[in-house]
């Protein structure tokens, strides 16, 4: 097994959601401790509600209040709660059919252990202390052996309904660039650029991918390229990107390193941005503590003739 690099990759983003009329009523209801379902054309009450009838496909808007008590229809014990889940101690995922509803809602049940949970058990909503119009306004469900609660007869109309929610998403990956790119990255630490040659078409790929995308065969033969190269095409970036610590304007260029059969992408420096041109000869500028060349700068050689790089744009 070759020595392959890996590193954590976390992507996080707070997505916004426009709710539309039905989900808006449902979530606003939770804020007001009112549970709302929607009535289908065949007279069933769906909780959580949907906008369109699953049987007839017709739009449905007939909101119906149901009770904050209900019955567990099935469940699964969660031994090890993860970040962002409703409870931080072990709990049961439950489907709860609220009294007055014909379908079940997924939520968490706070119970001391799996022995305390069974299908058919009675539960009630435990409301969150702080409510904003979100499914988390129900903190969780809890066991309940009292009378079924009664709906208040709410119409589903609210004065200041929520129209959107923000849903933070987070994905945790372990990223591995694979064998070929790991070799490439290690060579960069020695300030060398090493690609791989396809055994079939003989093209040199930089960075290498471990396979030739044209021939579909594995590549293994290391080929050192550069360090000098030719700017084959470029653009001048005038808008500053968030999370990118580069002053604008700057030149983003395709550079065909000498000996490589396709261009890699890098920034050009050491020359006013408006003097960069196709065919400019460049070399890497390395700085301490960075893996890649910080940028490429002119070598002072005469520009390359167009015919020498026109296939490498």
């Amino acid at each position: 097994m070759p020595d392959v690099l890996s590193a954590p990759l976390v992507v996080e983003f707070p997505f916004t959601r426009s709710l539309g009329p039905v989900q808006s009523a449902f979530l606003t209801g939770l804020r007001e401790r009112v549970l709302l379902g929607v009535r289908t054309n065949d007279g069933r009450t769906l909780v959580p509600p949907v906008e369109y009838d699953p049987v007839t496909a017709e739009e449905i808007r007939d909101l119906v209040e149901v009770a904050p008590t209900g019955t567990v229809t099935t469940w699964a014990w969660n031994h090890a709660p993860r970040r962002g889940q409703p409870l931080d101690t072990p709990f049961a995922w439950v489907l709860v059919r609220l009294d007055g509803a014909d379908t079940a809602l997924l939520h968490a049940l706070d119970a001391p252990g799996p022995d305390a949970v069974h299908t058919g058990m009675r539960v009630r909503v435990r409301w969150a202390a702080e409510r904003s119009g979100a499914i988390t306004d129900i903190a969780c469900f809890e066991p309940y052996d009292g009378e079924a609660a009664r709906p208040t007869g709410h119409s589903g109309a609210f004065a200041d309904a929520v129209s959107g929610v923000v849903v933070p998403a987070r994905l945790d990956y372990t990223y591995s660039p694979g064998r070929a790119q790991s070799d490439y990255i290690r060579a960069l630490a020695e300030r060398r650029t090493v690609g791989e040659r396809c055994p079939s078409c003989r093209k040199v790929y930089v960075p290498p991918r471990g396979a030739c995308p044209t021939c579909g065969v594995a590549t293994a033969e290391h080929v050192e390229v550069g360090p000098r190269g030719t700017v084959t095409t470029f653009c001048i970036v005038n808008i500053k990107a968030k999370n990118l610590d580069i002053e604008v304007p700057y030149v983003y260029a395709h550079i065909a390193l000498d000996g490589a059969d396709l261009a890699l992408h890098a920034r050009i420096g050491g020359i006013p941005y408006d003097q960069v041109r196709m065919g400019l000869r460049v070399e890497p500028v390395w700085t301490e503590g960075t893996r890649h060349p910080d940028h490429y700068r002119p070598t002072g050689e005469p520009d390359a003739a167009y015919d020498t790089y026109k296939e490498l744009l």
Partner: protein
Amino acid sequence: MSKEPVAVVGIGQTRHVAARRDVSIAGLVREAARRALDDAALTWADVDAVVIGKAPDFFEGVMMPELYLADALGAVGKPVLRVHTAGSVGGSTALVAANLVAARVHGTVLTLAFEKQSESNAMWGLSLPIPFQQPLLAGAGGFFAPHVRAYMRRSGAPDTIGALVAYKDRRNALKNPYAHLHEHDITLEKVVASPMLWDPIRYSETCPSSDGACAMVLTDRAGAARAPRPPAWVLGGAMRSEPTLFAGKDFVSPRAGQDCAADVYRQAGIADPRRDIDAAEIYVPFSWYEPMWLENLGFAEEGEGWKLTESGATGLDGDLPVNMSGGVLSTNPIGASGMIRFAEAALQVRGQAGEHQLDRARRVLGHAYGGGSQFFSMWLVGSAPPDS
């Protein structure tokens, strides 16, 4: 056994805008689907299958949204297929639907594509901070701008061409009530004076970010015979793909695009696209892609596409109108953008395009591309059925 001819009998789209905060994703797709069914005078029960497309799930952060959208699209109890080919997906989705009809798997198929960009983050979805890589670039414009420069160098086009395209498409959009941008006071001078974002691409030469959906009802000969309005007939359709980056890739005129067009023309019996095709809706997210794709699609010789644009031939009153709807430059709900091109081609041959209807639109090309110029999908539609 020959293929079943495929007819477009219903077209619907939302009025595309920057943000539709009044509807959920379900509500958005529903609007387009409902309008397409109304156009075809059909009900949900008349649809045999639903084929849906959108850009990557990361955009809105809803994984496999087609599952949750089944209710809204009347798809419960029917096959639902999801197609995914990046920016070309709207076109590929329509072609998958068309193939289901052509193969006689289904008689009538609802196909739909959407994007709710106001709720999404395309930048985040496309530019993950990959470990070990050098962060260099943000946005699709920075990716495509060097290829535009390469085109300018190769063709010798004057640097005024991009602005001409943007001015034309934004003017066309004024005649299309569904277009997102309606810049009533647009002038060529304003386009030229707009800031350079990724030189050589100016702000006014880039597409907007839109919320929108587009839907079509495709059906067989029997379905077409029942349709209340003239159908558009699919005369040819094809998809091609190639890697984003490989030694020898020609970003200015990708081989996959050429091959895709050639396949469509062969199916439709088109010997000379410039002569035999009346108009084209081409996926042009940055203005310079009009002359580039005109060459890639065979409407002009290599290096000559900009001359068509410069001559006015691609204007609404030219002899090869391009992007009558205002194009992607005026409307860009990413996942839907390809289908809007396909739908516009169909609207034109049906004579249903409204104020931007062409006098002569017997055969019109719809085109989409996606990813790093790696996916292509196209169809040619006609006012007369194939082999007639």
